[in-house]
């Protein structure tokens, strides 16, 4: 499937507008455009609301309401939520956890996929189905035993626990994707390296990984962002404020009684900002992985 996924994305990306030469004139084309634009505006409206209100003062919000454009840019509320939630700390935690999972997840996926895709070890197909089922089943059915085990070995409420669990879960998915990529890896290249005297480890390290680098980067990016957005496992594992991630902190704001509406807008904007930045940086990469991410 992974091939198919990457294929589809590639084709859509590389497909330049096959100019059909059937442009129409008249009211109809503008009407359709109008409908689509309206839909788009409705979709983007909540983002717009968050932005214009996060930079107001409470007094301004109270007097002009949420729909008025801000008279000036006031960062007081953003600052206030930042301090209140210790947002810098949360960002750092998210970055550490997501970064570690991305790196370790890619390593683990590569090792697995090397054995399955290139080694074609017996039982490969069973392993892949098992992995896929492992990803698809709800995390609820593993979360309590994991929580209990983490407590038993003394890593409960540490970032390490979240990193270990999410590395394994993400790499199950990475293995699935990479195995099919490696399944179609040109055999001649590997045989040539073996004839030159390279052992298995050298083939992996010096031949397969360099060729696979772009794909590994893509998968690492997915792991990073998926981990950034992960909610249940951090929710169960991380109780202390100091260890929590941005996504988790956002999920817990309901209980924090953010009575000030402008503060809520500020919280939303701070939550939106990092992912929009990722989106802009990795836009091409991400649109490729949409179908891939679907199985999760």
């Amino acid at each position, binding site marked *: 499937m992974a091939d198919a996924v990457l294929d589809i994305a590639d084709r859509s990306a590389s497909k330049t507008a096959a100019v059909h030469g059937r*442009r129409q004139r008249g009211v109809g084309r503008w009407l359709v455009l109008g409908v*689509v634009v309206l839909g788009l505006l409705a979709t983007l409206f*909540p983002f717009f609301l968050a932005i214009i209100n996060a930079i107001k003062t409470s007094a301004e919000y109270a007097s002009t309401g949420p729909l008025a454009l801000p008279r000036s840019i006031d960062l007081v509320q953003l600052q206030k939520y930042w301090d209140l939630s210790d947002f810098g700390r949360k960002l750092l935690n998210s970055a550490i956890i997501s970064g570690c999972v991305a790196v370790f997840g890619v390593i683990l996926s590569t090792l697995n996929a090397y054995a399955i895709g290139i080694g074609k070890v017996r039982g490969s197909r069973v392993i892949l189905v098992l992995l896929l089922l492992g990803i698809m089943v709800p995390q*609820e059915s593993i979360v309590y035993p994991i929580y209990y*085990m983490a407590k038993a070995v003394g890593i409960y409420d540490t970032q390490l626990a979240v990193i270990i669990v999410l590395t394994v879960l993400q790499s199950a998915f990475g293995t699935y994707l990479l195995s099919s990529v490696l399944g179609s890896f040109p055999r001649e290249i590997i045989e040539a390296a073996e004839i030159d005297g390279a052992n298995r480890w050298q083939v992996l390290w010096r031949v397969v990984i360099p060729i696979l680098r772009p794909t590994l980067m893509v998968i690492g990016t997915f792991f990073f962002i998926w981990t950034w957005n992960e909610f249940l496992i951090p929710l169960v594992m991380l109780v202390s404020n100091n260890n929590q991630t941005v996504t988790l902190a956002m999920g817990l704001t309901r209980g924090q009684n953010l009575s000030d509406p402008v503060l809520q807008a500020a919280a939303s904007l701070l939550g939106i900002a990092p992912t*929009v930045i990722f989106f802009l940086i990795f836009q091409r990469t991400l649109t490729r992985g*949409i*179908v891939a991410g679907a199985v999760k």
Partner: protein
Amino acid sequence: MAGAIGTYAQHRRGYYLYLVPGAIGFTLIVLIPQIANFVLSFTAWKGVGTPRWIGVQNYQKLLTDDQFWGSMIHTLMFIVSMTIIPVAIGVVLASLLFDYVRDQFGERVSNLFRAGFYLPQILPITTAGVLWGWILSPVGVANIVFKAIGLGGLAQNWIGDATWALPSVSLMIVWIQVGYCLVVFMAGLSRIDPSLYEAAQLDGAGWGQRLVSITIPLLAPEIFVVTLTTLIAALKLFAPVFVLTAAGPDNATMVPSYLTYYHFFTTQRVGYGGAIAVVQMILTVALAVIFLRFQARQQATE
């Protein structure tokens, strides 16, 4: 490769070494917990001490547990906002963007639209929850807008009222899901031969006819994949409910995942929570098996 290295079977055996770290991880984090949860679902356990074996009693209790059945019914309702509405909007929108906007206004414009509709997908769901919680609160934007345009009577306590809580959560879910459907469908459309559309247009087929007779039949595989993946996601729905309503008010938005979480960590009825998780798992695996068989068939025909 010379025989000196050994038989091919021996050669392959060496690769097993590379599976060891992954196998240990998968066993510890997925396999053992999965089995443990299954076993625990036949016990009464508070999370401390020794679990007491009670056979299928947890499952028997489930049969008459209104909270559980309520959560199942809500799941069915959330399928409307997770799957049915987004797929419908997605097909129409993809077809409009691909077959109409792209032709009339160019690829860049249609790509811009696609990115815009996709934006809600990239947010952590909890952030979306904070945003919508703010919009839908009693003193939130939604009510202020209704009052401003003279429809103050429509103002509601959207997420705090048992009648409106589920539709309100659903609204946010639709907002999130449309982008996913749209992008997959547009990718699917790009493999359709444009000359099909041209021929249809020469024959005088309008956009609506092209949608029904070309787009939908040719998109069937994508529609199937999206439907199944979103169904699986609907069965696991947790974060939107946790953030917006905490399954309330009065269980009006209770879903199985939340109920499991609630029994694990609030009532401490771990065995009972485990039984709900097992039911969820069985339903998910059933859907997943359909999905895998479909994919195997797709690959065979390719």
